[in-house]
């Protein structure tokens, strides 16, 4: 509909301007006068565009490759000029150091269980609230929804000082509680609630009527009918919530102080030598271990990832 409105005024001047045959183009009445040459030119253009795409891919793909290949190089090779694309001698020493220098397995587990807990908790909290805001007309619903939406306006950095104080006075510094509880109930879950509400608003009411006929109460309708139907929205919420928690950096470095409590992003930066310089091969080995699993899952569930993250990017 929108395009119809714009179509006429947009196309008209184009048609007028282009009439004097530019570049010896064929008149519109004869569609395919010299098919061979035309097709060859098309093919060259397309070839050039593909070449451009290949060049543009380099900064996106090369760092990941460089990370993995450098993590297998011995220290003597890692900074050699000119750099070697494939490791000349494959060394797994850096991987052993990753676990020797820090409780890396523990840190890995910390990040994993925190992200899983935050994801499950957020799905529950957000789908319940999203459903109720979309479907149940209780007094004050609008005011309460606006109150919740304030969470979309407040970047987590703004509230880090008061939250630190809150966590500190509760004696929860250097524990994982703030990294689990605040995202599930606070600002980060508001976006999830918003997305779930949008989804439930679009769900046909007739589906719920059937459940009501069968004698289901409101909770039964939500839990047995609406929630299972919401799996696309839940998948989107799960993906961006998991990645957000997995990538969290400011909060862990503010709240956590002992190594065995660190999360991965924080741990990655800790592989430094006695002079504070980074131990590159160890750091890159730890980074590879952090990145590869997520990247593999992404390759298998691309569509869900792209949709889920595009949703969160648009804020609904």
């Amino acid at each position, binding site marked *: 509909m929108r*395009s119809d409105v*714009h*179509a006429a005024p*947009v*196309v008209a*001047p*184009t048609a007028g*301007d282009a009439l004097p045959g530019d570049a010896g*183009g064929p008149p*519109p009445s004869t569609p395919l006068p010299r098919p061979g040459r035309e097709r060859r030119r098309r093919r060259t253009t397309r070839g050039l*565009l*593909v070449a451009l795409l290949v060049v543009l*891919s380099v*900064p*996106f*793909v090369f*760092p*990941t490759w*460089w990370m993995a290949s450098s993590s297998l190089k011995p220290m003597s090779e890692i900074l050699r*000029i000119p750099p070697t694309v494939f490791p000349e001698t494959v060394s797994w020493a850096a991987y052993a150091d990753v676990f020797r220098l820090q409780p890396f397995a523990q840190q890995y587990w910390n990040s994993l269980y925190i992200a899983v807990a935050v994801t499950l908790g957020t799905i529950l*909290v*957000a789908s*319940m609230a999203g*459903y*109720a805001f979309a479907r*149940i007309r*209780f007094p004050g*619903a609008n005011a309460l929804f606006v*109150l*919740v939406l*304030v969470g979309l306006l*407040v*970047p*987590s*950095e*703004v*509230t*880090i*000082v*008061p939250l630190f104080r809150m966590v500190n006075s509760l004696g929860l510094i250097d524990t994982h509680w703030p990294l689990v509880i605040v995202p*599930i*109930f*606070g*600002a980060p879950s*508001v976006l999830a*609630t918003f997305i779930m509400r949008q989804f439930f608003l679009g769900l046909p009411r007739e589906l719920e009527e059937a459940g009501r006929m069968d004698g289901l*109460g*409101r909770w039964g309708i*939500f839990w047995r009918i609406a929630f299972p139907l919401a799996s696309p929205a839940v998948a989107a919420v799960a993906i961006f919530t998991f990645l957000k928690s997995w990538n969290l950096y400011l909060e862990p470095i*503010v709240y956590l102080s002992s190594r065995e409590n660190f999360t991965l*992003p924080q741990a990655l930066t800790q592989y430094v030598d006695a002079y504070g310089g*980074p131990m590159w091969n160890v*750091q*890159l080995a730890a*980074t590879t271990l952090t990145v590869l699993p*997520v990247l593999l899952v992404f390759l298998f569930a*691309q569509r869900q990832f792209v*949709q889920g993250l*595009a949703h969160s990017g*648009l804020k609904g």
Partner: protein
Amino acid sequence: MSTPLATAEPRQRTLRRRGSATRRDHLVGYAMIAPQVLGAVAFVLVPLIAVAWYSLHEWNVLANTFVFAGADNYDRMLSDPALRDSLMASLVFSIGLVVLNVSLALLLAVLLNQKLPGTTTFRTFFFSPVVVSLVAWTIVWSFLLQDDGGINGFLASLGVEGPNWLRNEGTAMLAVIVVQVFKNVGLNMILFLAALQSVPEEIQEAARIDGAGAWRRFRSIVLPLISPTILLVSILTIVGSLEVFAQIAVLTGGGPGNSTTVLVYFLYQQAFRFNDFGYASAISVLLFVIVLALTLIQWQTRKRWVFDEV
């Protein structure tokens, strides 16, 4: 809602039953929103009010002082050259990021929309950094960008001597911006791709028959039609850019000098390096006001423009 029923005598009983059913329904509703509402109050609203209150105090955690100071912290902000520098750094970062990010995202989206061979693979390539852990991505780039790193190694093999990208005041900010662009441009690319695919083929076809070249068609037809998306994506990118922290912490630590100390990093330093929670709170309020203004602009734009959601 149930008032019309009340007039009919025989329906009196149904009404009462429905009344209690409605009440029960409402109770279920309140129970279902309770975790989110209480969480938003406890972890968003209360902290937001608290940070405004703290910003009116002289509060040093180490010295254990908490004294009401009126607008002192705000006065200090006005005359603090370091804050001015950090606002400048944020401005440079945000503008550089939005310009590079949006134009590259648009270029990639247009290329992927040409139905070329291997499009799906390229889309995967461009999107993949989005799912890579931010700190991991940043560490790899700091490895590549260091003085004797891969990029200068590559430049050396071409006979060019590259600068020490992250330790040079002229290049540090540019390096941070570029690293961030490659990390997240895939997201904007997807949003643009969706917008491009909603541009009807027939209009383009009509223009082609009328003899409009590819560039002309893009500029006169496609660009006007997707401009609402461009505007929205730009604002979202700016809002996101204000929250940049991990990249700065890992790549430059705010340096060299304070050339890459953006607002959030400055806030972090004041609070957790210098323990000046009062001043940090005032900076938090400033950050909130900026983000609020931008978000309101974004909501206004969304209301005014019709555009296609993904």
